């Protein structure tokens, strides 16, 4: 699933999320980053999800997991 970093940052309120943090936290939450791509000042993250986690098949769902970290 492709997720723009800027949207993740917007969804997580109350604290900042750096690219470095996203790269560190996502794999440890069970969502390995397949690839990364720079796109007009933003970073597009290709994230792998597992079949039991349909709740993270949206950017908001991923943001919620990340926010708990």
């Amino acid at each position, binding site marked *: 699933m492709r997720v723009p970093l800027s949207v993740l940052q917007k969804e997580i309120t109350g604290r900042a999320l750096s690219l470095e943090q996203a790269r560190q936290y996502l*794999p*440890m*939450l*069970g969502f*390995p980053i397949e690839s990364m791509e720079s796109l007009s000042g933003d970073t597009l993250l290709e994230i792998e999800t*597992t*079949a*039991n*986690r349909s709740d993270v098949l949206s950017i908001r769902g991923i943001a919620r997991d990340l926010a708990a970290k």
Partner: protein
Amino acid sequence: MSLRFDLLPLAIAEAHQQFEVWVSGAQDLNEINRLKGVFTGRKASHLTTLTELLKQTPKESKADLGALINHLKTTWETSLSQRLEQLTSVTSSSSMDLTLTPPMSPQGAVHPIQRLEVQIVSVFRSLGYHVEEGPEVETEENNFDGLNIAPTHPARRSSDTFYLEAHPHLLLRTHTSPVQVRVLKRLSQEHSQGVSLLESLGGIRFLSPGRVYRKDEIDPTHSPMFHQVEGMLIGKNIGLHHLKGTLSYAMKALLGAETDIRFRPGYFPFVEPGCEVDVKCPLCKGQGCRVCKSSGWIEILGAGLVHPQVLSHAGIDPAIWSGFAFGMGIERIAMIISECPDLRLFFENDVRFLQSMREVR
């Protein structure tokens, strides 16, 4: 060579004298052959020269000298062949060194995949695990249903799994997990004096190594046949801490005392919770290298706590019993520790490759 006819007797005497010296001095077969040419050859030999001279000899002495030359010829020939015989018999008896080590035929060795399998098994043996084996042709029930893999799961498709043409419910096992289903069923079904085998044992721990089959195209990291080792432990109040302690110990024993492991959430239908287990890269010690893609960690195991569905499917009460399971691909680990970039090398059995693998621990 030109000699006057009246010198023929002298020439005969000289030639013979020379012959005797050379023949007794000859040390090998080549020399004998050379002397044969020089003395009795058909062209430009001592014998032909003497015969030429004989033609110029006056009639009265021709007969005597002719007979002498003929006698000379047979003498030379017999003495040459005698010397030859002498030399060959000496050669064969004195050159035999009975203390010499005979040439050894090349020694065989255990295949690197099998050797690694034995290493893994021996590590877990020290933890009280034993080996359980099962057939490579499995029922769909043991391979999928018993492991909580949904009837619609993509891995069941005939494009991913080898089904037997004549028996559509039989397949080549896609993992060694059906062995666990078999063992669990046996534990719950076998009773003595009203007590199940599981109850009387108080739990079980075992490994199931073996060959598995998937419909994958052959490439550097895929093969339609490869090897797995899976392990399972069933007991009471078994949790993730038992799993982590076990794997932490086993990976240290297998890859070196400084080896560290970490758990990441993962998903397999037959465990809950499920996790992927990373090992700190044994090549760069976590510094980041080509093999671990500069992350410092390498994923080598899948693991988790046995899913309650798996237990109840086998007739075991998940309210009483719990356990953990883990599995790893042997080729994958072999490729990592030997830094071998191509899986196919393990199956081509090129002796040069296998010999190079001998030095890898």
